[in-house]
């Protein structure tokens, strides 16, 4: 059974019909990427899954359990953690406090220390800055913090919204390497990206979103070779 399944999900901002029937699924252990140009509805999809936006119709299930009408904090408690667009770290909390907030609802307190060491292993920079306030970090460090904070929730499904946005190319490489490393540790990932080339190079499967609809879907390798994807999202050639 798929970990995450969306079936004909429609979401609105007031009268703006932002998601027009999204159906997708993520299997356990996969990296699935959602690509598409600016304004396609990628963030809206993740926010709808998270419960920050209530879909008007359609259903969302996590390993068969209905999530559709649950508020965001309940969705988090069922194991979906997110590194959101714009990072949304807590600027006046220290790096350590930010990470603690990531583990806010966990009841297995004995494992939290171990997970802290794990994210410090993935992001050594954060360990050097544990006492620093989140708001004083550089953009790249904030991105690492947002991902690490989501990891601290010990997610069954990790949602990443444009983790490469606004970062220097070298840092983008690091971030993508980390995503692969996370996946190797057994974490299922739904990755939203505008950087389609990078995303398709690490993903198992992909969905191409256009103005609130799924335009194409399939194996990452196949999408990479698709003429339309090449022309529109990979800058042709």
């Amino acid at each position, binding site marked *: 059974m798929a970990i995450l399944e969306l079936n004909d999900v429609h979401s609105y901002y007031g009268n703006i019909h932002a998601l027009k029937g999204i159906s997708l699924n993520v299997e356990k252990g996969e990296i699935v990427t959602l690509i598409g140009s600016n304004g396609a509805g990628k963030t809206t999809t993740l926010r709808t899954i*998270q419960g920050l936006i209530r879909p008007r119709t359609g259903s969302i299930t996590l390993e068969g359990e209905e999530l559709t009408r649950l508020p965001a*904090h309940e969705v988090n408690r069922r194991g979906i953690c997110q590194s959101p667009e714009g990072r*949304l770290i*807590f600027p*006046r*909390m220290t790096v350590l406090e930010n990470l*603690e*907030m990531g583990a*806010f609802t966990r009841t297995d307190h004995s494992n939290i220390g171990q997970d802290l060491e794990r994210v410090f292993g993935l992001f050594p920079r954060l360990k050097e800055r544990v006492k620093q306030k989140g*708001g004083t970090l550089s953009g790249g460090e904030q991105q690492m913090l947002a991902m690490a904070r989501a990891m601290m929730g010990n997610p069954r499904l990790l949602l990443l919204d444009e983790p490469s946005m606004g970062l220097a190319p070298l840092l983008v490489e690091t971030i993508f390497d980390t995503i692969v490393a996370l996946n190797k540790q057994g974490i299922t990932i739904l990755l939203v990206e505008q950087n389609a080339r990078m995303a398709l190079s690490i993903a198992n499967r992909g969905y191409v979103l256009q103005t609130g609809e799924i335009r194409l879907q399939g194996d990452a390798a196949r999408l990479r070779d698709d003429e339309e994807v090449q022309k529109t999202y990979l800058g042709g050639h």
Partner: protein
Amino acid sequence: MTETNPTTQRALRILLIVAIGYLALLIGQPAGLDVGRIITDVATTPTNVLQQLVIGLANGSIIVIIALGYTLVYGIIELVNFAHGEVFMLGAFTSLMALSIFTTTTATGGLTAPFWAALLGFIPAMLVCGLLNAGIERLAYRRLRNSPKLAVLISAIGMSFILQNIGLQFGALGKLTQVGPEFQIFQVLGSNNAAPKSFPVVLSTANLLGDFPIRITQADVLVMGTALVLMLTLNWFVQNTRLGKAMRATAQNRDAAAMMGINVDQIIALTFLIGGALAGAAGMMFGLYNGTVVFTMGFTAGLRSFTAAVLGGIGNIRGAALGGILIGLLAAFSDQYLAVRWTNAWVFLILVLVLLFRPTGLLGQESGDKA
């Protein structure tokens, strides 16, 4: 902005300050700013300056506790809770009722209550006001949370009118004493709804310093001590407890907090509960310190406390403490050396000046908010 070199800018700024100072001296006359008289006053009884310091610190302590309610709520939902002053007023009424159960009439006809009753009275005052404030949020603000800010603000102003009228009508319960002795506890409300109600005498008015020319009474000590305890407890709670951290997280980013599994609605309700409880405590402090309560008192207290919160940096707990003390001192010195009638105007002037020239207040947001 036109290009000017730093020296010219500096000169212009000094000129501006001199001009404002001159205007203040000129226009300030009717508002009590009579420098000559003030100098004479200070010279004849210099100890009075220290006395005003004590009064200012005590009144400032009460302002701090109310200001914390403004700042907590603003910090978490960016709403100036205009009803907060009225919650404080109802807190003072609740305190009065709590005390009235233990109130006895003295031989000279005055009302008195034992000290332990006053301490016990903090509990119902804080409980009632905490629940009231959380109820206001549930009823009047929650459903408007995603509406334009103005809608919530107007809802808050409406709430403040309603509460003030409840305060006015509550006074009418005093008439029940004519019905029978079982309503004796309403005796403290007197027979006129709108009239100020006297708090029973709880604390000795003797000078703790004996014959020293500066008076420090039990009330001064109680008010300042209570404020300190409440402030330190709040600070500890917000910094160290799980719920306190959830409050801070929600204040800093509501969506992110929800993604962390924090029930944002609950945390906002908790914030109103705490702010209201503090207003209730301040109501008791005010009654014990000033001796009378009246249904209009929420306005003045609200104005001063809101100004205190803005002066310190709204949303900032330490700022509320600093601003509250400063406004308390300003009010005390204005009452003594300027003119009682104009004290609110001076406070309002501070509010306007801060909003114009330094809207983030003296301390601004808590440090580290560069994101």
